[in-house]
């Protein structure tokens, strides 16, 4: 489903907006990547889309519905899932308990829960093997996989990925991007923010550049691949 952000203004303090009128569209079934220098407001944008921050101006539309006010706890039901920056596993709970919390919104619907579990264990056999391990004792790469797997359990249509490869060693970064590639094939609408500009542009269909809370450039991936060195030079 298409996600549209229109003229979004938001900040942690009213007088200092981080986003100063950002507009972008993550088209249905495509990967849209947002890049930009530090402080451009990329993560703030995803946080606002997921409802952690309330915009002081502008709208967020998912499949045409206004969602800026519904708050994070209703987002999975709306069909949007969010991979937050940093750790989002529950470290002192087992892999299985983490996945159970992933289908929290199916509470009381045993059938839907079981279906989600058998599908996730089929798709990620490593998680099935480690189901009784505490999430905190998994390796960094395995934790990331658990987080990504948990994201899709309730059958969302749109995924927001905030820095999916940050803090991982190069080999694991490749694995994470392979996984995002698989999600792309499954036709999720994906909006990605990542420090790893090169990797993220490779899987992108469409790219937006933000600068100091405002739109800077945007265009289809092919266009960006050539102009990338020039754009990055501008940031420095």
């Amino acid at each position, binding site marked *: 489903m298409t996600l549209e952000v229109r003229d979004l203004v938001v900040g942690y303090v009213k007088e200092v907006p981080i986003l100063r009128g950002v507009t972008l569209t993550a088209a249905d079934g495509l990967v849209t990547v947002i890049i930009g220098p530090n402080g451009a407001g990329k993560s703030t944008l995803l946080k606002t889309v997921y409802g952690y921050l309330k915009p002081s101006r502008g709208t967020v539309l998912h499949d045409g519905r206004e969602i800026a006010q519904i708050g*994070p706890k209703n*987002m999975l039901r709306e069909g949007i899932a969010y991979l937050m920056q940093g750790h989002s596993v*529950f*470290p*002192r709970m087992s892999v299985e308990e983490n996945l*159970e*919390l992933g289908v*929290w919104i199916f509470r009381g619907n045993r059938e839907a829960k079981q279906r989600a579990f058998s599908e996730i264990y089929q798709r990620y056999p490593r998680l099935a093997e480690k189901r009784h391990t505490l999430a905190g004792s998994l390796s960094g790469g395995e934790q990331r996989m658990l987080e990504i797997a948990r994201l899709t359990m309730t059958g969302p249509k749109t995924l927001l990925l905030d820095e999916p490869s940050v803090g991982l060693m190069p080999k694991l970064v490749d694995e994470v991007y392979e996984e995002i590639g698989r999600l792309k094939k499954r036709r999720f609408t994906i909006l990605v923010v990542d420090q790893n500009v090169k990797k993220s542009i490779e899987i992108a269909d469409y790219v937006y550049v933000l600068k100091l809370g405002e739109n800077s450039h945007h265009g289809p991936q092919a266009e960006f691949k050539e102009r990338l060195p020039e754009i990055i030079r501008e940031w420095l």
Partner: protein
Amino acid sequence: MDLAMYTDPSVLTEILLQGLVRGSMYALMASGLSLIFGILGVNNFAHGELFMIGSYTMFFIVATLQLPFVAGLVAAALVLFLVGMLIERGLIEQLRKRAGRDWLLDSFVLTIGLMILLQNLALVVFGSNRLGIPEMVSGSLIIGSIIISYERLIILAVAALTVLLLWAFIRFTAPGKAIRATAQNPEAALALGIDTMRVHTYTFGLGAALAGLSGALLISIFPAYPTVGLQPIVKSVAVVILGGLGYVPGAIVAGLLLGVIEAFAYFTMSAGWQNVLTAALVVLIMIFRPYGLFSSAKGERP
């Protein structure tokens, strides 16, 4: 002092039981405090007043209405569950919406204020008399030279059962898992659709119910009066520090341990020294194991 006294099984059992009875109160109080701290980041200094409301509820049900003691225990737990949820929704949640950067200090001021308010309210409504019940049940279990009153056995059994139920609730039920998730990563819990505001409310209710239950359970030792909660709160704050802030199993073990240590101190030194010993233990823990007895120096827990 006569050393033979220490090897006398009846004396040892007496001290140990005294310690375990006090310790089970500490454990119930401190596990509630720790739970509330772990989820809401609030150090609830009004926890002793929840204990006090529990004692009054017990007195009302058992002495005034002449109902069996079990009814008093259940009523105290239920009343405090509701009172706790009201405090969370009406005061703590309201403060959270308006709080500045220093949440610990803000909530500290709130709960200290609540403590003073509830103490004085009790003074106005009930007066300063001590309303006690001599014992919930009479009689003793006699095994050879060892005498154990049924009263103490009941206190220990109820405390043990409560701790067991609390553990099973947190470990196996959906609301219990939501509590753990919220403690470990509140933002992620919210992202998965867990209503963390509701978790806050029933966690506070649960902690309050534990305080109310311990107030009711110990009515034969601590009669109901407006400031009866002072000693329990001071000791359970110490227990929470010993067990590790926010770590419920730590609070339970540390509570029982402190009860027994105090009983031995009371017996071997003289009355009053047990408080010095407790304070000394807290200071030592803060220096050498600031995250509690059961965590590593870096704060990692099993």
